[in-house]
């Protein structure tokens, strides 16, 4: 599992993602809070400016003289020390404090920002009419008063920054807590993966048992993985067991054959014998050796057929292969007085080596002859329809037992647990047939014919061969 490439940690990724999102959200939040806080503070500031300006306006009072003059009475007005104001009547300044910039003094708007000695100020300008002595007969004198009042805005910004700082600190604490929580939660939530890995780690060549832990099974996202693992392992186990059984069977078979050869020769050498006895014994030993050789040959054939196809394109006439197989098995059929009846309506070109095609046909045919009742008929039909060749071989023997049916194509299966070899053959014939068929995507099946006897059906991908081409194929073969 160790990889030289950089590994990816889901935990780290999740934490980084979540924290990044949180930081972005926090920045947006702080921005919004800044805007909002600034707005709030300035609204309050404006209100307070206006309030003070109103007070200043209210402080314009009747002067203690006889005329209708007005004066500024600041006793009831509280003015912060940084504040700047100027109260003026048309043409006459009633009172002022601080250095008011000229631009503000002459401004026509009612609110204005400007700098005084480099410090930002905000000014409100109140234009009002003050009526003095409204109780007089002439209903008082109207004085047009202009009040300008300003305060430094620095303090507001200070307030805004304070608020922002509070939020930033709170957010940072929140981020830290979230990160810790995330680590804990993610670790806990990823535990089923570790459980699954731990369980999978226990699998060895000897012990294939694997059942996904309950924690992984209950995790929706892990369930497909757990199921896939279980299924894959069970398939592997099956094929492993099959291989193992095959090896054991092959070893059993070879050992038995070797035991026969060995005992034949040792028997011969147990004591001095006549030349005739030696000759007969050697002949028997040679027969035994031939059987061993056949077993080895068939094992090698099966091993070759079970290798993946090399992709080389090949084809041969199934009809020609069948004819050759019939020719090969003729003497055996005659020996058992069995008549072979072939109905070959079409020819089909199948993507097989000619030797394999002949082997396929002759194995099935020999099997049929072997299991036929003496004097009966083996019926063969070969038809081709919609790019499929179907070869059926039926015997009139005892048929097959349903219990055996699924095992008949297994190597060394002889329809009896004992693998009795009395019937001859190695028990590899049908396995070889199946391997030949499966290699090119075909199939082979064996069943009991409704009217008795066994029926073997081979289905192979094929292309129809024009009659003239059949001829030339036969000639060239």
């Amino acid at each position, binding site marked *: 599992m160790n990889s030289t490439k950089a590994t990816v940690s889901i935990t780290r990724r999740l934490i980084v993602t979540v924290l990044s999102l949180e930081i972005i959200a926090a920045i947006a939040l702080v921005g919004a809070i800044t805007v909002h806080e600034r707005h709030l503070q300035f609204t309050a500031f404006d209100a307070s400016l206006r309030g003070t300006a109103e007070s200043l306006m209210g402080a314009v009072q009747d002067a203690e003289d006889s005329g209708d003059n007005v004066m500024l009475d600041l006793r009831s007005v509280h003015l912060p020390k940084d504040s700047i104001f100027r109260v003026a009547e048309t043409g006459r300044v009633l009172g002022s404090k601080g250095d008011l910039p000229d631009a503000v003094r002459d401004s026509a708007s009612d609110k204005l920002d400007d700098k005084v000695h480099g410090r930002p100020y905000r000014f409100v300008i109140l234009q009002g009419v003050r009526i003095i002595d409204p109780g007089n007969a002439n209903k008082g004198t109207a004085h047009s008063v202009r009040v300008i009042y300003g305060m430094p805005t620095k303090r507001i910004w200070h307030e805004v920054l304070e608020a922002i700082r509070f939020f930033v600190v709170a957010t940072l604490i929140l981020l830290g807590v979230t990160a810790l929580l995330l680590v804990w939660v993610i670790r806990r939530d990823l535990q089923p993966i570790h459980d699954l890995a731990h369980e999978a780690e226990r699998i060895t060549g000897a012990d294939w048992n694997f059942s996904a832990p309950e924690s992984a099974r209950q995790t929706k996202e892990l369930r497909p993985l757990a199921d896939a693992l279980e299924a894959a392992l069970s398939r592997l186990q099956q094929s492993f067991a099959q291989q193992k059984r095959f090896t054991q069977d092959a070893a059993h078979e070879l050992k038995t054959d070797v035991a026969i050869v*060995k005992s034949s020769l040792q028997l011969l050498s147990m004591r001095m014998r006549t030349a005739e006895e030696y000759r007969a014994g050697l002949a028997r030993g040679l027969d035994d050796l031939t059987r061993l050789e056949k077993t080895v040959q068939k094992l090698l054939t099966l091993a070759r057929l079970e290798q993946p196809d090399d992709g080389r394109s090949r084809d041969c006439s199934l009809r020609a292969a069948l004819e050759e197989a019939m020719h090969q098995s003729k003497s055996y059929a005659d020996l058992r007085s069995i008549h072979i009846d072939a109905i070959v309506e079409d020819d089909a070109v199948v993507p097989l080596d000619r030797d394999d095609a002949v082997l396929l046909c002759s194995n099935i045919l020999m099997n049929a002859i072997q299991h036929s009742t003496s004097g009966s008929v083996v019926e063969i039909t070969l038809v081709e329809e919609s790019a499929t060749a179907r070869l059926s071989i039926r015997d009139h023997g005892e048929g097959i037992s349903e219990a055996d049916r699924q095992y008949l194509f297994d190597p060394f299966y002889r329809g009896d647990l004992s693998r009795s*070899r009395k019937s001859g053959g190695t028990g590899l014939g049908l396995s070889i047939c199946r391997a030949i068929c499966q290699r090119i995507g075909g199939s082979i099946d064996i069943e009991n014919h409704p009217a008795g006897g066994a029926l073997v059906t081979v289905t192979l991908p094929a292309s129809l061969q024009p009659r003239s081409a059949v001829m030339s194929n036969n000639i060239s073969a």
Partner: protein
Amino acid sequence: MRVLLIEDEQRLAENIATALREVGVAVDHAEDGEDGYQFGQQGVYDAIVLDLMLPGKSGQSILHDLRKRKIHTPVLILTALEGKDSIVQLLNSGADDYLSKPFDLGELLARIKALIRRAKGASSPILTVLDVEIDTIRQTVSRDGQSIELSPTEYRILEYLAHRPRAIVSKQEMLEHLYDFDWEHNSNVIEAHISNLRRKLNIIGTEPLIETLRHRGYRLREEAHR
């Protein structure tokens, strides 16, 4: 001695049976488990050679059933199976010995003989009765230091009796243990062989070795006078 061979592999069985017969052991051959069990449960064999994979009835099951029926004939297992587990299991379920295929024919014969010997209570291959020495390996007999020439059948009778000292062995038992099914069962044959055996063993200055108990059988004398 008479051995039952239960082996479905025809050629192998032929070779083993021939080899056993050549060393003077009577052999009955069963080709499948059912027959093998039927033969074996008669209890007339001195040893059974048992293949494990058999049609009809498996070797394990034959062994199990024989032991259940109190048949204590020594059993040698022939197996082509791998694995210590199955061997341990076989020995535990009553097998006395085993050989893996492919085996050495000479070793098989030696093991069968050793099994028979041990089952009859003799651990040495040389049996001694009074002054008679029987070498079961070389199949030679000597009395008082003098070598005695015996025919194969005479030797087998003497060896069988020597394996059962003091016991009365009936003619029927001798027929069962010394001949396989291929021979004709005729108790006169035994009488003739015993008579020849007595004559050959009768060296001057020795006592008669084989006693005849009328209608009961034969017995080797063992009361030594020296």
